[in-house]
């Protein structure tokens, strides 16, 4: 065996003795299958700085390549709000529960735009970073997570307009607003779950890339962004986790009662999707470099 012929050199003085102390246990053991646990939280923690850099890169690059930069984050929901107000409120006479339609629409568009962008960006994030995946190791899940986090920055910017609208329409602040951070966390988790899963699927089946805009479109109509949830279809719409989130946003902003049951269903579905996505991702992750 070639390796044996070399181990006989053991004990020979090496040209440059290493100052490095060899630990008793290997830092990393690489073997087929088993060694990679579904989610290695400790490893993720050691890579937190890289996550920060990936988020920073996504934001920086996005705004460097565009003419009006961060204003896009504002413009996208604003224009949609104007269009929706004109078509759905003025022409179609869609009812808005308890608030003027523009702010009603914007309160729905704000979480929706974040969700749609986050899912789209993270769904396409792995195939957009092929060179990283084939050339360097780090937990791959950081890529779609960074894409979601970068979209969260846009969400922050777009929220400024919401504050302006709330002042303009004198909606005031209600105690329910304390639920807002919880809802933001929930929509972030949901977007991460869906995004992570689609990102992994996209590596293997590029069809995802083309199906994604279509999926987002359908999901928009299945969510109460444009309209308020009609009582008759409430039970069905509750199965869409975005329903409770969007309605929750409006409740928090306009001081309306929360539908706790629906929120609970939404949170459960979100956690299930996230857990499933993490598991599916870990399973597919092993072959990313081979198939991407």
């Amino acid at each position, binding site marked *: *065996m*070639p*390796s044996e*012929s*070399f*181990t006989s050199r*053991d*004990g020979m003085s*090496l*040209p*440059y*003795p*290493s*100052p*490095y102390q*060899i*630990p008793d246990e*290997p*830092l*990393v*053991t*690489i*073997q*087929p*299958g088993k060694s*990679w646990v579904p989610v290695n939280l400790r490893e993720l923690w050691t890579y937190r*700085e*890289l996550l*920060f*850099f990936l988020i*920073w*890169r996504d934001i*920086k*690059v996005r705004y*460097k*390549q565009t003419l009006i930069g961060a204003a896009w984050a504002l413009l996208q929901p604003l224009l949609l709000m104007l269009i929706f107000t004109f078509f759905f409120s003025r022409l179609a006479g869609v009812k808005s529960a308890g608030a003027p339609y523009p702010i009603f629409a914007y309160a729905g568009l704000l979480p929706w735009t974040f969700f749609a962008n986050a899912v789209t960006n993270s769904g396409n994030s792995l195939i957009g*970073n*092929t*060179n*990283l*995946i*084939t*050339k*360097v*190791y*780090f937990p791959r899940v950081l890529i779609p997570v960074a894409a979601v986090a970068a979209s969260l920055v846009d969400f922050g910017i777009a929220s400024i307009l919401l504050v302006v609208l709330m002042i303009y329409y004198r909606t005031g602040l209600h105690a329910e607003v304390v639920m807002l951070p919880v809802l933001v966390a929930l929509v972030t988790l949901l977007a991460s779950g869906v995004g992570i899963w689609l990102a992994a699927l996209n590596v293997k089946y590029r069809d995802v890339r083309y199906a994604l805009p279509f999926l987002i479109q359908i999901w928009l109509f299945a969510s109460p962004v444009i309209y308020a949830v009609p009582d008759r279809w409430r039970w069905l719409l509750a199965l869409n986790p975005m329903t409770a989130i969007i309605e929750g946003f409006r409740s928090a902003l306009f001081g309306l009662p929360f539908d706790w049951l629906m929120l609970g269903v939404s949170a459960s579905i979100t956690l299930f999707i996230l857990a499933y996505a993490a598991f599916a991702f870990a399973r597919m992750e*092993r*072959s990313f*470099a*081979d*198939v*991407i």
Partner: protein
Amino acid sequence: MKPIIKVDKLGKRYRLAARQASYGSLRDTLAGMARAPLRALQRNGESAQPFIWALRDASFEVTPGEAVGIIGRNGAGKSTLLKLLSRITQPTTGRIELYGRIVSLLEVGTGFHPELTGRENISLNGAILGMSRREIARKFDEIVAFAEVEKFVDTPVKHFSSGMYLRLAFAVAAHLEPEILLVDEVLAVGDSRFQRKCLDKMQDVGRQGRTVLFVSHNMPAITRLCPRTILLDEGRIISDGPSSEVVSAYLSTGLGTTVAREWPDTNQSPGNDIVRLRAVRVRSEDGQLSDALDIRKPVSVEMEYDVLKSGHLLVPNFHFYNEDGVYAFVAHEADERWRGRERPAGRYISSAAIPGNLLAEGTLFVGAAMSTMNPVIVHFYERDAVAFQVIDSMDGDSARGEYGGPMPGVVRPLLQWHTRLVSEVNQSETAHVGEGTR
């Protein structure tokens, strides 16, 4: 001494179909192309073999502070080994134990973004390669100075020249401080002066007691940097020992540079039921098989093949790569007598003469292929079928003239230079004129 890397019966199997669908690097794509025609045949035929072992039963240990070279022909499994060690891809069999922090450098500038400035890319690339933010900040000035891009640090790298870009990318990588460094052929960047600087830097890394695994086709660099070398062929370790011995064995046994290769068993040779390759050879001007060829003299490359079925338009073609894996050129058969003419069954030898004073010095790897054009069918493509060395004896009559240093480029044609004196300034005469006016 305890090892820092322990590799035990490591194997990696690729599913051929998966590789065909891959969107990998150019090298992978080309390797895939090379196998594609064979694969199509195998699928139709009985000997369907959907897997290939890129690496098989590899076992070795590396002690801390060692610098180990990894050599072998293209496709021998070198890059697969590095990818397994750096956890980019998962092994099919076996086990690796790493007792130190590992950083792999399979490409310079991984994650560089053209829109970001030099400064921003240093931070990003450093983070991707595993440096902490503090570490990056501490080494920032050193990196910029090493790359010699001080003035352009705040310019987006899309405005950088390719040389500056590569220098910056390498500089970041060169300042990593892992316990184990894996390097794949990245030194083939920049001009020769910068390459030397990189080699020196690598040597420093070794002196600091770090462990280095270095994959390269550059044999002088291997022997200079690494006391020990592992030779891979067809996915297996076939030699492991002191670099000087392994490298000279590699060069002499013809694993790396075979000037003639023959396939005595027609059933095993590259090809299909229309045409099969029998041999590929390199001959010098006097018709002798030779692996060291004078840069000034013509070289001929020939392939011998059996046409098994008449009635096909066949075009033999050769593909030339230099030792850096750069595709130098392709040559399709240009023999008037066979243009548009179907070949009757029989044995053929097609040879192509490469004129003298065309190739650059170094090793050339020759791929031999047989194609049918319109629509394109590749009957066989034997990558790296043969290889030969082009040597300049430095007599002063080649394109390098009297210059003795390294010269870049994949070709080095001797051009028709013409220099004439347009008007003479006679110094003694001007001196006279000067005297006369006084």
